Each structure stands twice: as structure tokens, then as C-alpha cells.
């Protein structure tokens, strides 16, 4: 069993007085491929927003490396800066792809020259150097997703949250990124991935949490689970 990097207890989230999430406990294991699965509307993305501290309007506790996290702006921001999120339909800011990829570093006040160097390196690594000078709206769905993956990885996050990344990727790109994510886990990065892709689950999952109607219905090591 690997170490727990992130844990959430008694998470409750309401929309219009209706509980959409009621999670007693969920654990995210360090340097592992954690999968979050479940039917549409089961609360997967809502939970991802909470765990990544993008949404702090919820009841319950988030524990990061054994420490309870305060939900105030300072602590939430500190934690968010340790994480990265790859969204299902990524939003790219107006400007070039190089600007978009370097933006998280710019927000952390990294020097321009260093940003340029890191952008070039990550683009080369992900084989998207040819996209750097393109404008944000000149890209195909798959290319947008690749750019957003580069943007998420440029900060070397401790936890990478990924919301159904393969929807806009072709087979070859999806395979490439699955392998890349595995490599990142070997390097010590933790991944929480939402997916409906059975192939991905079968080949890559270390831990699985199954959500149903806003509650955890099953959780544990993939090998020990009967799904």
C-alpha cells in the first residue's frame, strides 16, 4: 500500500439545497494512478473540483500529507499551486500557445527567460513545438488538449487531476499520453483521473474509487476490486 497524499472526510456539497455530493472518505495515494469512475452525474467532476481546491465552497475536511487544510484563500492558493488540473474541454487564454503554456509560471512570477526555456523544453518533450507560435483558436480539439497537458505539467505538480482527457484525443495521442502519465507516476507524481475508458482502467489503474449518486460505492486497489 502506498502513502496517502490527499484525503477528504465528510465532504458535503449542495446545489440549490440538494446534496450532490456526500463523501464519507476518499483517499488519494502518492505516486499512483488513482481512478475516479462512475456514471454520468455521479459527482466525479464536482469531487475533482473540491479535491483540487478549485471549489472551496463545501463542507468537510481536506487533509494533505497528514495536515488538515484550511479553506481560506491563502491556504487554498498554496495547495492549488502544488496541483495541476487537465480539464475535459480545456480553456485556452487569448494569445499564443507558448503564452498559454507559460502562464502558470508567469502567475508564480517566474522570470520571462526561464519561462521561455521551460516552455520550449516541455513542448519538445510532448512533441508540440510546432504549435507554440499558433494562436489559441487555431488548434484542433486534440491539439488544445495537448497544449493544456503541457500547461499542467510545466509546474511539476505533486498531484495531477485529469478529467476525461481522452475524449478529444485520437488513438495514437491517447496511447502516448497514457504512457506519459505512467512515466510521471514512476517519477513520483500522483494522478487522479476521471474516465469512462475501460481500456485505461484495465491497463493503468492502481486504485479505484467508484462514485454513484454522489457517494462512494466502492474503493480500493484495482486488483482487489470486483468491478
Amino acid at each position, binding site marked *: 500500500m502506498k502513502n496517502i497524499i490527499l484525503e477528504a472526510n465528510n465532504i458535503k456539497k449542495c446545489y440549490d439545497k440538494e446534496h450532490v455530493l456526500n463523501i464519507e472518505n476518499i483517499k488519494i495515494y502518492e505516486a499512483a494512478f488513482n481512478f475516479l469512475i462512475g456514471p454520468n452525474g455521479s459527482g466525479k467532476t464536482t469531487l475533482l*473540483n473540491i479535491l*483540487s481546491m*478549485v471549489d472551496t465552497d463545501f463542507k468537510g475536511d481536506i487533509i494533505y500529507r497528514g495536515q488538515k487544510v484550511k479553506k481560506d*484563500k491563502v491556504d487554498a*492558493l498554496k495547495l*492549488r*499551486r502544488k*496541483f*495541476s*488540473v487537465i*480539464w475535459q*474541454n*480545456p*480553456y485556452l*487564454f*487569448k494569445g499564443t500557445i507558448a503564452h498559454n503554456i507559460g*502562464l*502558470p509560471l508567469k*502567475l*508564480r512570477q517566474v522570470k520571462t527567460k526561464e519561462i521561455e526555456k521551460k516552455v520550449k523544453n516541455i513542448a519538445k518533450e510532448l512533441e508540440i513545438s510546432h504549435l507554440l507560435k499558433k*494562436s489559441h*483558436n487555431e488548434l484542433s480539439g486534440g491539439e488544445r488538449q495537448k497544449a493544456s497537458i503541457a*500547461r499542467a505539467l510545466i*509546474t511539476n505538480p505533486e498531484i495531477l*487531476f485529469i478529467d476525461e482527457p481522452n475524449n478529444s484525443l485520437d488513438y495514437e495521442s491517447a496511447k502516448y499520453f497514457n504512457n506519459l502519465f505512467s512515466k510521471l507516476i514512476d517519477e513520483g507524481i500522483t494522478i487522479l483521473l476521471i474516465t469512462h475508458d475501460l481500456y485505461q482502467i484495465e491497463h493503468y489503474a492502481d486504485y479505484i474509487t467508484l462514485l454513484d449518486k454522489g457517494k462512494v460505492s466502492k474503493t480500493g486497489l484495482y486488483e482487489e476490486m470486483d468491478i
Partner: protein
Amino acid sequence: MDYILSALKDAINLILTLDPEVSNVVGTSLKLSLTSTFLAALFGIPLGIIVSKIDFKGKYFLNTVLNTLLSLPTVVLGLFVYSIISRRGVLGEWGLLFTIRGIIIGQVLLIIPIVVALVRNAIHDIDEKMYKTAMSLGATDSQKFWLLISEARYGIIGALITSFGRVIGEVGVSMMIGGNIKGFTRTITTAIAMETNKGRFGFALALGIILLSISFIINFILYFFQSGESK
């Protein structure tokens, strides 16, 4: 036909020789319009953001009022401001009637609804995903605000250019509040109206050509920014 050609010849001559009277009128108009647009931006941009992003009681009503004010006739606004700043008005003691400051007040009131409404639309058009993405990238609250402004920049610049275009071409406020005083509050539009009545067609035509050129330049810049929106 000779009469039109003669007026056109006079007009071109006045423009090319940089006639002092024409230059003075154009200078006054540009100074007034730029100042009014700047002041309207100062109040209108924050208001537009507030109206777009913050929910409050009466927001629906305010938006309806704003949309109505977009097509406010300038003479009606002129009449309203006149009633306030004329000697018997609430601000009569301030001596604003027939002054540059008086015209600026009227023009700012004229274009603030335009700035607010267009900035509101520009901010409103931004995808909700932007906020979530900015947060996940590690933006602070102030960085999120600047990212929002940056994403809406073409819309905001467009709002200011549209306002400038509206204000430089208006005649009601300038005429009623400014009084069309030569060398002081005479603008391009009030001068055109008066000089045409006096029969100085060449002079009026010269100003007309300049106003049309300014309008063309404004629209050219506006188109540039609007096409930038899609890049």
C-alpha cells in the same frame, strides 16, 4: 453643380492650408471627445464589470435602463443637463453653462451607458471555464481579475472607440450646453450646423470631410480590434 464644386475646392483648400479656424474647431472637438471618453472609461469600465459579475437587487431593471440609454437622443440629454447647470438649476452656482466642463459633463453622461453596456457584454461573453482554469493555474484574486480584463480587452477597447465615435459626432449636448461660442466651445458638429445656415458651405464641408475621416479612422481601428477578438 458649380456651387458644390466651388465649396469642395474651398473645403480642400481650408484643410490643406491648415486654416486656423478649422484647426481650432477640430482641436476643441478632439480635446472634448478624448477627455469625455477617458472620464467615461474611468467610471464605466468598473461599473460594467460590476453589472456583469455581481448579482444584486434591481439588476434586471438597471440593465433595461442601460439598454434604453444606449439610444438616448442627445438633445434630450442636453435638455436634462441644461436644466441642472443653468442659472436656475441645482448646480447653477457652479457656472458650468456654456463652458468646456459643462459639455464634458453632458458627454460623459451620454457615453457612460455605452461604456457600461459594452463592457458588461464583453465580460459576460467570457466563458465560465476561464475562472476555473485561472484558479487551477494558481492565479490569485487580483491575477484572476487581470486575466479577466485581458480576455475582454478587445471588447473593452471596442467600447471606448464606439463611445469616442458617438461623442465626436454628437451635436445636441455641445449645442445646448456649450452654446457654440467661437474659439471656445465650438465643436465640429455645432460649427457645421451654424456655418451651413450662414452659407459658408466650403467651411462646413471642410469640417464634414474631417469628421468623416475621423469616423473612418475610428471604424478602421474598431474593425481591427473586432477582428483581433477572433484571433
